[in-house]
């Protein structure tokens, strides 16, 4: 019996966080440290004619870095097409061009404003539509960063069948800012002997190390990366911190002093990555009794000006585009497009929320066309164990979506509420209520062969006092990494939760357990934590130090003795892809993920016909995520994800003008407050997954997928208005209602 898995011990760093002692990057001051700022482009696409340093500033006191100071001007990621500082050509607004450092932030701000970038504008592509229509070229010859196809069965033959109805629809989603409350920040020190060291807010220390190594052409020991307490990430601190680390390191190298760069909110919002805007076209062949026989999907996302992670976002969106349904014929054309806007990037869900929004909205449209209820169209098409998903992956999860749907409908009193709202709505009155549903899955870990290529490693080491430390690069960013790793290791070792500590990610001390992304930390890395702990325990048993049926005190004594008498006690575990997982990246066929998490979400929404405001009044989130390691943290992940989903669905509207975010502040980019969030009823089904620690699957991204379509479907139920785009702001609802009235 596990002693700690399935319990909810206090999070490891809770005391530090509630007392204000937790140290975030902006709380750290190094001796002699100076500040850095970034001079950015104002225009979206241009040739740089020159950079002028204006009068009235003592430039000889300021450290100035331009592209000419950079040994190898590239931010290493996938395609390595993004420069650390623009050189010759500007590809998007807010692109960094010059870096400045000085002890005085007030003087730096004056200096920043005194830099003038003289440009010759070039034609710019500012929207996904323009990129697809190729009104100008932002990338290559056709603006396409990446294109994937899924081809299952014979879609054209299915559409030619005489017994099918064809339903078409087009759906769109806007950009979304991660809006972690701690803005991005980094401190760098550079010395001739030790190379570069950076400390900061981040999700992926080894991504940053790779970027520093490439740019400065140094070995790993000359590029050390240390995570500080990180105030939220949600994907927004996956790839961008590499740029910030490079910038701070360049200034540190040139000035010879420690340099801190912390963005203010406006800079963070305007210049760093956001969720990819998307546009999805659906064409569906469905029989009169509601069986979907073919899905033909054209999915496109706006990647911004550099390719960054867009191809990976695209592949996840593409694979999730056909949902948890058993469809014999599926064709998905997926394209990541270039525009002259700041690159879009990782954000919780990573392409899946976009394509799932389209599918789940489209299903309600199909249901209406057929005169079916929205639960019924899903019930008739759910994939079952043994069926194949769009990539040909055979579902091996022990899953019963039909039963989950019934459970969710019964928990939320779906039928009774719908009947009551229908009656109330028919009486008229200013407020209309409705219920909406979304059913979906989310793949655990990296897509395809990603985990195999990562080959993540976790270590465990015995400490002199007999406790054990987990060594991993997986970051604690609020989601509970340190806590669940300690639970998993404690149970594997047979010791107390308090006798396990989790090392701060520091590339000098911890192995590369891969990036903290893709809902992989608990299930993939957690499994390695379990394995490394088991292996460490085996060493103590092998040394004859652990008696059978040992208790925690005996373990500590044995561990301390081993360290004292024999030196280091260390074990590592490396990811080995299970042999029954196969993925063909060329053909985009096979086992896209080792496992999926599955969910049924329901929203109750009220629409006020006086203000055109939609308000979520109640929310139910039922999911199957394998074994739940820490029920309190897990519920917190679901509730937090649902809240971000509500924001994306109703409020969070990035307003663009000339390729720049216009509402780059919290005054007019609106995220949910405590007054906007309904009760969220979280229900877990737990069907242990053999590949995860104690049976756990991924959880972090899943809750981002369901809220937006469930809410839009509830608005349809309440008002008869079908919103095909989020956010459904009052203005959007007003326009849709006016259009319906004709």
């Amino acid at each position: 019996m596990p002693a700690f898995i399935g319990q909810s011990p206090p999070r490891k760093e809770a005391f530090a966080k509630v007392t204000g002692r937790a140290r975030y990057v902006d709380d750290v001051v190094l001796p002699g440290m100076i500040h850095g700022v970034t001079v950015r482009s104002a225009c979206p696409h241009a040739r740089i004619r020159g950079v002028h340093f204006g009068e009235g500033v003592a430039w000889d006191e300021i450290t100035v870095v331009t592209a000419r100071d950079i040994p190898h001007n590239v931010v290493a990621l996938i395609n390595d097409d993004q420069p650390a500082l623009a050189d010759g050509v500007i590809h998007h607004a807010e692109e960094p061009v010059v870096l400045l450092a000085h002890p005085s932030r007030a003087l730096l701000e004056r200096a920043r404003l005194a830099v003038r970038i003289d440009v010759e504008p070039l034609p710019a592509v500012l929207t996904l539509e323009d990129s697809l229509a190729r009104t100008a070229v932002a990338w290559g010859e056709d603006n396409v960063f990446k294109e994937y196809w899924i081809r299952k069965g014979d879609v054209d033959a299915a559409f030619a069948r005489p017994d099918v109805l064809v339903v078409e629809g087009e759906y769109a989603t806007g950009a979304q800012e991660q809006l972690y409350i701690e803005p991005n920040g980094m401190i760098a020190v550079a010395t001739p002997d030790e190379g570069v060291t950076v400390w900061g807010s981040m999700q992926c220390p080894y991504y940053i190390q790779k970027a520093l190594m490439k740019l400065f052409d140094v070995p790993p020991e000359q590029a050390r990366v240390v995570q500080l307490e990180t105030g939220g990430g949600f994907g927004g601190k996956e790839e961008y911190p590499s740029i910030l680390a490079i910038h701070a390191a360049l200034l540190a190298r040139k000035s010879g002093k420690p340099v801190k760069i912390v963005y203010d909110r406006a800079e963070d919002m305007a210049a760093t990555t956001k969720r990819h805007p998307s546009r999805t076209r659906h064409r569906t062949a469905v029989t009169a009794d509601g069986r979907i026989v073919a899905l033909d999907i054209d999915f496109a996302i706006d990647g911004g000006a550099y390719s960054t992670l867009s191809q990976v976002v695209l592949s996840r969106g593409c694979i999730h585009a056909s949902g948890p349904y058993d469809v014999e014929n599926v064709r998905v054309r997926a394209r990541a497009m270039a525009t002259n806007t700041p690159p879009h990037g990782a954000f919780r869900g990573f392409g899946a929320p976009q394509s799932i929004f389209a599918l789940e909205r489209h299903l309600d449209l199909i249901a209406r066309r057929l005169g079916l209820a929205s639960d019924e169209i899903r019930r008739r098409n759910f994939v079952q164990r043994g069926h194949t998903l769009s990539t040909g992956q055979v579902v091996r999860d022990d899953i019963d979506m039909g039963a989950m749907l019934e459970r969710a409908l019964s928990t939320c009193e779906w039928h009774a509420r719908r009947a009551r709202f229908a009656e109330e709505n028919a009486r008229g009155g200013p407020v209309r209520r409705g219920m909406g549903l979304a059913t979906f899955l989310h793949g655990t870990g990296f897509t395809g062969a990603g985990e195999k290529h990562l080959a993540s490693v976790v270590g465990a080491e015995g400490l002199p006092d007999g406790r054990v430390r987990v060594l991993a690069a997986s970051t604690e960013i609020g989601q509970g990494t340190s806590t669940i790793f300690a639970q998993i290791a404690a149970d594997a070792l047979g010791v107390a939760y308090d006798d396990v500590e989790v090392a701060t990610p520091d590339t000098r001390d911890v192995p590369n357990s891969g990036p903290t992304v893709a809902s992989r930390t608990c299930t993939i890395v957690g499994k390695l934590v379990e394995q490394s702990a088991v292996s460490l325990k085996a060493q103590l048993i092998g040394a004859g130090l652990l008696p059978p049926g040992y208790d925690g005190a005996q373990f500590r004594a044995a561990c301390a003795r081993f360290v004292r008498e024999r030196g280091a006690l260390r074990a590592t575990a490396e990811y080995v892809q299970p042999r029954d997982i196969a993925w063909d990246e060329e053909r985009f066929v096979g086992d896209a993920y080792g496992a999926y998490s599955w969910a049924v979400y329901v929203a109750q929404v009220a629409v006020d016909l006086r203000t055109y405001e939609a308000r979520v009044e109640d929310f139910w989130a039922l999911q199957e995520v394998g074994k739940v390691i820490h029920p309190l943290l897990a519920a917190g992940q679901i509730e937090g994800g649902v809240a971000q989903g509500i924001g994306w669905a109703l409020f969070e509207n990035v307003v663009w003008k000339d390729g720049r975010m216009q509402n780059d502040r919290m005054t007019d980019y609106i995220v949910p407050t405590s007054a906007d969030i309904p009760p969220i009823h979280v229900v877990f089904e737990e069907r242990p997954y053999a590949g995860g620690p104690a049976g756990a699957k991924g959880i972090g991204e899943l809750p981002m997928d369901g809220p937006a379509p469930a809410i839009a479907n509830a608005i349809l139920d309440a008002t008869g208005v079908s919103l095909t785009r989020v956010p459904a702001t009052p203005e959007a609802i007003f326009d849709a209602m006016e259009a319906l009235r004709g």
Partner: protein
Amino acid sequence: MAEPIAFRVNGRACVPGVHPMRRLLDVLREELALTGTKEGCGEGECGACAVLIDGALVDSCLVPIAQVEGREVTTIEGLADGETLGAIQRAFVEHGGAQCGICTPGMILAAKALLDRVPHPGEPEIREALAGNICRCTGYIRIFESVVKAMEPRGERGAP
């Protein structure tokens, strides 16, 4: 030269000797090394920099120190009694009220301002009282739960 601004922070007298228009947030963080007060937006929207001034919840990024002359400022560092947490802090630890932790100091102070004023608020009052403090991690549910639990009398508890 005018008299330097004097005020109290967490019960201790404080004369930072800086310009009266410096933001209270910066003076707390940079002059007094009280870095538990965080900057999230710099324009009074997010509440990460919230402190209590004579018991009232205020965003310290909007307050020049001239305005706290002679007043009592309470920051997150003033809530625990040494290593003994206050009731609200303890409830946040036990009930999942903190995730990434960056909004937590301001959120706990917002909860304290509420509970000092209304000992047993209902859920609508809790929602209203915390609405000026943005949390991007929790969806607020565990924060409400923490505030409710903090109200429950528990014998051995330390500082409020």
